[in-house]
């Protein structure tokens, strides 16, 4: 028995017929073809599927599409604007905050909400703030740096050096 839902994704409205059991992540990836949102586990542990639902970061593998009815979804594809990359995207690129890129969209969405709530987080607050998102490649040092970079840029502070401290 399919249900009609309407969701706004990155500002664009979509009306869809979905089964009540269909997961939001599948709708985003397979119906709307926004494949930046990834699936990395089946226990809501890895955070690769993190999106914003009405501005709050959620793991879209554990949200039913019907729960998103009438709500606003933001995905990584909506981050950059006509003015250019979001400071977080820039931060990840400038600080080598990604290797394989698979966890990156989820990390970006989680970090986006983190900085909205806490614009000047300490390193420890960043580490706890992204602890629901697993990265297997980077060892997190540079993800922390990337978020610090974005925080500085968004607050109009001087951005920290992006040269690796590898002497």
């Amino acid at each position, binding site marked *: 028995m399919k249900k009609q839902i309407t969701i706004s994704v990155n500002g664009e409205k979509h009306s869809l017929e979905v089964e009540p059991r269909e997961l939001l992540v599948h709708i985003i990836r397979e119906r709307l073809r926004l494949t930046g949102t990834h699936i990395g586990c*089946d226990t809501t542990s890895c955070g690769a599927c993190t999106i914003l639902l009405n501005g709050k970061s959620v793991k879209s593998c554990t949200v039913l599409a019907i729960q998103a009815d009438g709500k606003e979804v933001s995905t990584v594809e909506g981050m950059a604007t006509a003015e250019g990359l979001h400071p977080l995207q820039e931060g990840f690129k400038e600080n080598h905050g990604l290797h394989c*890129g698979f966890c990156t969209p989820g990390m970006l969405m989680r970090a986006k909400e983190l900085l909205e709530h806490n614009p000047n987080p300490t390193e420890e607050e960043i580490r706890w703030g992204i602890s629901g998102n697993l990265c297997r490649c980077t*060892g997190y040092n540079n993800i922390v740096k990337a978020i610090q970079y974005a925080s500085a840029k968004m607050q109009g502070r001087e951005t920290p050096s992006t040269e690796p401290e590898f002497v």
Partner: protein
Amino acid sequence: MGHSLKRKEDVRFIQGKGHYVDDIQLPGMLHMDIVRSPYAYAKIKNINTEAALKIPGVIAVVTGRDLEKYNLHWMPTLMSDTQMVLPTDTVMYQAQEVAAVIATDRYAARDGKEAVMVEYEPMKPVIDPYKSLDPDAPVLRTDKEGKKDNHIWHWEVGDREATEKLFNEAEVVVKEQMHIPRIHVASIETCGCVADYDKVNNHLTMYMTTQAPHAIRTVIALVAGHVGLTEEKVRVISPDIGGGFGGKVPVYPGYVIAIAVSFLVGKPVKWVEDRSENLQADSFARDYHITAEMAGTKDGKILGTRFKILADHGYTDAAANPSKFPTGMFSIGTGSYDYQTTFMEADAVYTNKPPGGVAYRCSFRVTEAVHAIERITDRFAFEIGKDPAELRMENFIKKEDFPWKSPTGWEYDSGDYHAGLKKAMDAVGYEALRKEQAEKRKRGELMGIGISTFTEIVGAGPSKDFDILGIKMFDSAEIRVHPTGKAIARFGTKSQGQGHETTYAQIIAEELGIPAEHIQVEEGDTDTAPYGLGTYASRSTPTAGAAAAVAARKLRDKARKIAAYLLEVSEDDLEWEPGKFFVKGAPEKAKTIQEIVFAAYTNHPQGMEAGFEATHYYDPPNLTFPSGAYICVVDIDKDTGEIKVRRFVAIDDCGNIINPMIVQGQVHGGLTQGIAPAMYEELIYDEDGNILNGTFMDYLVPTAVESPSWETGHTVTPSPHHPIGAKGVGESPTVGAPPAIANAIVDALSPYGITHLDIPITPYKVWKALRDKGVN
């Protein structure tokens, strides 16, 4: 070279435009889900597919009996053992593939999977590898004619008699029993594929998560050539890969079933495993039980080592080692120390666990070897009461003694171990830390300092010794420069996050003077890329990176000829500086590489081949031997056993560095995959073969909270035989970190007479060890 160029590939990844296997959606594509065994060892009495086939959308259920008709129910492993694709009568491990459900969408496939009824007759499994060789243990591989036990192979190297004599006569002998636990790479992207067979043209396009697309194409042709899928009819495409670490080298049954189904129904079939399947059934790493011994003098001279290994391979040897090396490069285990007496032996056994023995950011068993030597070296230092840093300094192979012949037959190409350890000690403030530790010990507080000074062996490898399934382990580069001086370069390797699109471009830029941003790098399509063995075991820079440099030099030689022709001078009169040839003594008479390339298409000398492209298949003369000196500082809560990694300093030597930012990133990631098995990760099985932590809820991949803020640095000892003096680096930190952490924890506990703890060292293990020693 040596410049931290920001990565070219990031532009797509940060905007959600990476293109991974699960992103592929083809018209008419079917979905496959796999029914798995709940038992570790059981007879299959019956598979009832009736209910599953009634589910709307379910098209077929494939069993081993179906594949048997095409002789596709078994396949070879990379170690020339055999593995079931789907069983016809017996399952050999929990989560083994039993049947595949094919449906029009993923939900129907999952419904079908739940509806397949399998009747099993469970049998008592063999789980403990030590018991697998008992005379009364059931013989697991009854499929192998004449097989009378569960022994797979025996391997040995070194001098048994001389080592025995040395150990009998030595002043000091230390010994520890260690388990290097079974762990899983757990790349955040799981494994999967889309098999797309075109019946009309008899052509298979296989999109898959593979680190070695060419080797896979050859394997497919070997396995399925008899049904018409010969090698020219198979195209393997490895798109963006969400982490590999070795787990995406093997061929898994799911891939083969997807190909078989697509072949039979003529439609594309997608199979993407979920995380639990990935952890429970895909190739594990490690699982070596090692008895490590060291002999030496009372004043601290290391004289010899002895290692005895029991290797648990699960129900088939599905490792991915070079053919001649069943224990991979374990024989690097003599370490960074100057002695010539050793004996190492290993026996591998079958058990009712998933097959493998592959990878975890180090597929060739260097991690096991380094853990054994670095732990036993610390044990020796403790025994004679010598500082472990001092003991290492006194026993290191000296810089001037390279190239150095190891007692197991390797020729270490280069290294400066003293410089590395000194740098690490200075960076961490070693002496001050030892003083602080002494003060804390007086107060009964637990603080430990652990060192690991490892020698790595990467870049497989020279064709005289290295092959996989007979294919020599060279790698390749092909560079095509377009008339306007922009290039495309293709490689036999396949990045899974290592940044090849950037570093390979930098190598070519260095050699040819074409800016890196004008060099597009492509990998992972067997129809376009030159043949290569792929990316794993830190081999890409040592092999394909070298191939890039040599191919670029071939082009530079051609450029010199064209420049001489254009400038009307002899080739000998020309000098090169990156980007142009100029006439000696008259630098204004010059031709840029762009002008030369344009001439190669528009005005090339008569008699010369037109165009500007080169290919090179690089067969390395030796492996490369990176090294590192790591120091870890821990504080331990005596009441709870909680371990806090306070500092971790890593000094790596990977020779000349192409891109420091990327190398440092590799080190950060590798260190985190070092702390993971040292403190958190282990695949645990109960005595019935049930996996106890087969999901991401229970299998503890470190988060940003568990990962320390890594402190990294480097020394540079160029590889003398590599064209640009580089060595591999990706796996070094994963190899070097666990013993540094274990040594630090044991150091903290050593006042209580604790000499060893097996990794992962958890708070409970620490708490228990202390209680066993009477601490309350």
